[in-house]
């Protein structure tokens, strides 16, 4: 959705969105990467040095070194219950953004198999770290992919994700 939103705006002819190539199932740690460029994207390899990291579940922090593949001036968006988590965050990224996307999803009733569907709220929050992709473009794509009431819910979640962030900056 992020790649599509960027592509549908002006200025990003090159986008590429890749899942982690392997078995994927709900509950297991999975990864996906997106490249966005003002030129066609030619690289086909995995992303090893990211400008922006989006962590959908803060409990992953204690399981693995999720920030090891970041550029020095990177930004991180993390889904966590409150902003206390930012206190522990160091200088391995320039900008940390916390959003309680799980709460937003649960309040919106976007829950499947007891898991909150946090994608739309995370997309809203990451606009702070990637202002060149507009919230309205993301909402347009959400409406396109989820017609009807579900689309409206996703659009509202993206707006809430955008509005309910806490930031910590290292300059």
């Amino acid at each position, binding site marked *: 959705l992020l790649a599509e939103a960027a592509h549908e705006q002006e200025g990003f002819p090159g986008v590429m969105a890749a899942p982690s190539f392997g078995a994927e199932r709900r509950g297991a740690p999975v990864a996906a990467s997106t490249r966005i460029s003002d030129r066609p994207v030619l*690289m086909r*390899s995995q992303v090893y040095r990211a400008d922006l990291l989006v962590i959908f579940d803060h409990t992953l922090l204690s399981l693995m070194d999720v920030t090891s593949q970041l550029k020095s001036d990177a930004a991180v968006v993390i889904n966590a219950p409150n902003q206390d988590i930012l206190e522990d965050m160091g200088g391995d990224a320039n900008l940390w953004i916390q959003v309680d996307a799980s709460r937003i999803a649960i309040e919106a009733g976007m829950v499947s198999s007891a898991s909150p569907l946090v994608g739309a709220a995370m997309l809203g929050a990451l606009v702070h770290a990637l202002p060149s992709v507009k919230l309205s473009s993301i909402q347009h794509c959400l409406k396109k992919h989820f017609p009807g009431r579900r689309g409206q819910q996703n659009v509202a979640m993206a707006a809430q994700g955008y509005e309910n962030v806490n930031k910590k900056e290292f300059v």
Partner: protein
Amino acid sequence: MITAKVAEFVPRNAWEKRFGWCMNMRTERDRKSRVLTGNEAAAFACKDASVQVVAAYPITPQSPVTERIAQFVEEGEMNAQYVCVESEHSAITVCIAASTVGARVFTATSANGLCLMHEQLHWAAGARLPLVMACVNRGMAAPWTIWTDHQDSISQRDTGWMQLYVEDNQEIYDTILQAYRIAEICHVPVMVCYDGYILSHTAMPVSFASTEQIQALLPPRTPAFQLDPANPYNFNLVTMPEPRKDHEGIFEMGGYMDLRYRFQVELKRSEEVVKSVHDAYANLVGRKYGGVLKTYAMEDADVAVLAMGTVASESRVAVDRLRAEGLAVGLVSLRLFRPFPGPALADALNRVSQVVVFDRNVSYGHEGAVASDLKSHLFSTDLRPRVSSLIVGLGGRDVTADFLVRGVRQCLDSKEPVVAGWLGVLGDSTIRPGR
């Protein structure tokens, strides 16, 4: 052999009556580029080619192609018969049968599924049927893998199928449309090969051709010969070693070897059709892929990188980096692997002193297929560039621009040409001897 007598009977066959000739109409909105996975791009191409019969058996990473086509058929967006089968062997056999009665057909598979089709691949080619297949490249077991390399399609290289390899999702769509035209002009089946996951499951912008463009480029299939109950014929009977007279006493059937010779000549000649169909498509739709091969920064290159598929795309980034370091490196991305475009390749390489070949396959006990074929062809010319060959990216091992740069550098620094060195084993960039 196709005689004038056979060509006469072409009936307005049952297929046309039953399914009609229906171009799938699309709206203006759909013509903009969309962000699609490689598998979706293949399914859209199949729909836009107005394929009439699809038979395929699901296998990772091919499954989403057939799922999407099944959805098109189910929702009435595609006027085709989707035949559910119990194996890849049955899938290709259904395609052969449907093509023999005059339908335009499609199948898709990967790896072990492709190899299960193997004997019928020979049949399809020998029977001169214009099948088009998407081969979503995946490594061969054992050990079990679902990730990409070219071992599956390279293992089918001697079946007589044309093989085209592509670099991105747009090229998948465009090449499948071109493949139908090429196949139907040359009476040769075509395999469009694209890397599993790296293209099949990765989303990129894809633009469609318009209905008018497709109508201009891809007219309905008019089979030169077909099975028809109203006018019974036998095809591909036991064929004697020597030619024999037909029932009217005329020597018009060749022996087996004569028919095979004709196939070989026409397959070699089809290289020209690949170029002309590509050029016609490029003129009308505006997207170019160089015909049988693409070149990048080759004008003043002293060293050429030669690769296929997504390794070629990644090599473009590697070439930029090597150029930034002051080395005159260019890229030749081989699009057509069978028939092997030897003269075109020699022409593209005629000014370089060195070639570094990256093969995402290996003929076990020897070296990579592209390197072998290149050297074999060059030996029949006066060109003697130093050819180094590297095996990369087997079973989905990630091929980064950084690794390719280090691979090229090591080949250039090596005193002896590197022959079938393995790059990336144990995750480091040391070239290990492959033989």
